[in-house]
Every structure is written in structure tokens, then in C-alpha cells.
């Protein structure tokens, strides 16, 4: 059964379909929360909030703009970043996080293995300082100012590193899509 229909079942209050929806996405949602927060109890709370938010805001999901899993992942990540800020969670080391992200293809990854492999290769190819800035900004949700403070670098340098990393990855993905 498609993700869209399971989401519809969740919204309609159907117990079996709601259960199927949660089972399909729970490992992905919990994984996102856990990697940002590093604390299983906090991560479970955030993961539960993510499903609740999806249930409440299902009407805002637009299938033309992306998959259910991508939408739910974004909801979870935003909640986890907010929770990390509010509760001052102990952050995962950026290099450790980068290693996790560039490791083996996760079973529940939304991206096909080949495509994810290209992205991982592009991340590994980034200069170390750009990779750190990217991880801090894209996964931990740190602003450029916070990246600057965390890394002990000027604000302008932090902005440049984030921008350069994002543009390199965008270019790598574009190149991959253009390839026959």
C-alpha cells in the first residue's frame, strides 16, 4: 500500500492503517531524532511528536512536492533541532556524525543506493572544515553565527564554508542527474 494512502488512513483515524503508517516510518523517524539528540528518551518523545504533527497537518502535505517519507523526515528533524536547542542536548561530534552519514546505505534510506552513494562520495570529497560546517548547519541546525562560535572562526568564514559545501553538493547532484 502506498505511503500516501497510509497517511490518509492515519488522518481518517483508521487503527490498522495508522499502525501500518507508524510501523513503516518509525525507524526512520526515531533515527533522525536520535542522531540530532543523542538521547533515546528525548528522541522517543520527539519521534512521537513528529507522528502527532503529521496526523494534525496531513492536509498540508502536498504529494506534488515530495514523498511522505521526506516530509515526515523534515518534520522530525525540525522538531529535533528545536528540542536540542530547548533542552541543551549534548551534541554529537560533527566528525562522528559525518562518518555515520557517509557509512553504509541505511536500510530505510529514501534514496536509492546508487544515488545515496554519489551524495556520500560528494560529502567525503568536501574539505574537512566545510564538511564540519555542513554537518553542524544541516543536521544540528546551527546558524552560521553558532557555527562560527562552535568552530572558533569569524562569522564570514562560517557562512562561506556552509555556502561552499551546499553548492558543491548541489553541483554534484546536478551532475549526477544530467548523466545519461
Amino acid at each position, binding site marked *: 500500500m502506498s505511503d*500516501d494512502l497510509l497517511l490518509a488512513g492515519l488522518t*481518517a483515524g483508521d487503527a490498522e492503517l495508522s499502525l501500518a503508517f507508524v510501523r513503516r516510518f518509525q525507524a526512520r523517524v526515531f533515527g533522525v531524532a536520535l542522531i540530532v539528540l543523542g538521547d533515546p528518551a528525548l528522541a522517543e518523545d520527539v519521534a512521537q511528536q513528529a507522528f502527532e504533527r503529521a496526523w494534525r497537518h496531513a492536509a498540508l502535505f502536498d504529494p506534488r512536492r515530495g514523498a511522505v517519507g521526506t516530509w515526515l523526515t523534515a518534520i522530525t528533524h525540525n522538531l529535533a533541532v528545536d528540542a536540542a536547542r530547548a533542552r541543551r542536548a549534548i551534541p554529537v561530534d560533527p566528525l562522528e556524525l559525518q562518518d555515520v552519514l557517509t557509512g553504509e546505505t541505511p536500510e530505510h534510506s*529514501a534514496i536509492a543506493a546508487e544515488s545515496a552513494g554519489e551524495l556520500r562520495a560528494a560529502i567525503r570529497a568536501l574539505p574537512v572544515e566545510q564538511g564540519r560546517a555542513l554537518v553542524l548547519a544541516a543536521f544540528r541546525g546551527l546558524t552560521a553565527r553558532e557555527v562560527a562560535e562552535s568552530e572558533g572562526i569569524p562569522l564570514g568564514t562560517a557562512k562561506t564554508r556552509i555556502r561552499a559545501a551546499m*553548492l558543491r553538493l548541489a553541483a554534484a547532484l546536478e551532475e549526477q542527474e544530467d548523466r545519461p
Partner: protein
Amino acid sequence: MTASDSAGCERFRELAPEIALGLVAGHERAAALAHLQDCPACSRHVAALGAVHDRLRALIPAAEPPVGFEQRVLDRLGVSRRRPVATARWLRAAAAAAVVLAAFGGGWAAGSAGRPPAVASPLVDGAQHVGDIIVSRERPNFLSVYLDVPRPGRLTCELLRTDGSVAATETYDATGGTGWWGISRPAGDVATIRVSDAGGALVATGGLPRP
């Protein structure tokens, strides 16, 4: 593009990666969004960077939550263990409603725990179930209509009062397959909906759901 537009784009592009990552707030974000509304090129640029962020997040490894997680989620939502009647219809109706309400910028965002946020009633062609009418509890005066379109062409959707007079009309140019549109329900004793084709032949009819 004028020189000032170009300068605006240059300033914006400096900030675009942080916008795409959701790291910009306040006045800076408001100014950036205003620029995006008027600049399709910058809008595409941010969308491409946003897609990078989505793909980065998809790299995060899955992790099994603690035992009992799924039941705790369902309890939190107040989802009944009982399967509702006519699930297939509900499912199709809710899927259609989600699309319709999203397309119309609908406000089906809030619902009370344990209570479906919308109700539906069937559209029939004789004895055949051919579609659904959905109304969100949060927007009781807006009907989302879903229909298995028999053939492409213009459809006329009429809301009828109990005396048979027409209270509201909406037309929809169907391309075949699944058709869906929205129509406002006027105040008064509107009770049924009638959908007819360009030649005036009846395509479907049904009673309106009561939120």
C-alpha cells in the same frame, strides 16, 4: 532583469544556502521570502538547495525505537483500535481530501484527538459508488469532491436545496481518471450534490456529509 534586481539576486544568493537549511529568521528571512516571490530564478535556486537538504536528511540511518513505541504513538493520537466502517471508502475519500485541501490551501490542520478531522459521504451513479464528498470539521462550509471521471470533458457540479433548487454551481474540466475539486457550501438547507456532463446527463449524485 534590472541592475537593482541583479544586485538583489546577488545579495540573496549569498544567503540562499542558509535559507534552504531553515537557518535564517526574522527580518532577514522576511526580506528573503519577499525576494523569492518576485524572482523565479532565485526561487529555483533555493528549491535545488532545499532538495540537497532533503537528500542529506535521507542519509541518516534508521534506528529501531524502544519496544511499545507504535502503541504509545497511537495512544497519543487517540486512534481507536476498532477499524471504522467502510474503510476503503474512507481511505479513498481521505486521500482525495488531503490532495484537494492542499491544492486549495485548506485548513485541515487541526483535529481533536480520537476524532477524524473530516467526514465523508458517497457519490453514486445508480448503485455504483463513483466518488466521495469530504468536509473538514475545521472548514464545514467547504466541500471537497472526488470523482472517478467516466470520460474527459466539462462537468457541472450543483448543490441542491431540499426543494430541488440550485444553491451553488461549480464547473470542472475533467481530463479522465481521478477528478477532484472544491466548492463552497452556501448557508441554508443544501442537502444534495449533482454532477452532470457537458450534455446535461447525470454523472453522479449524493447527499452532503454532516460534520
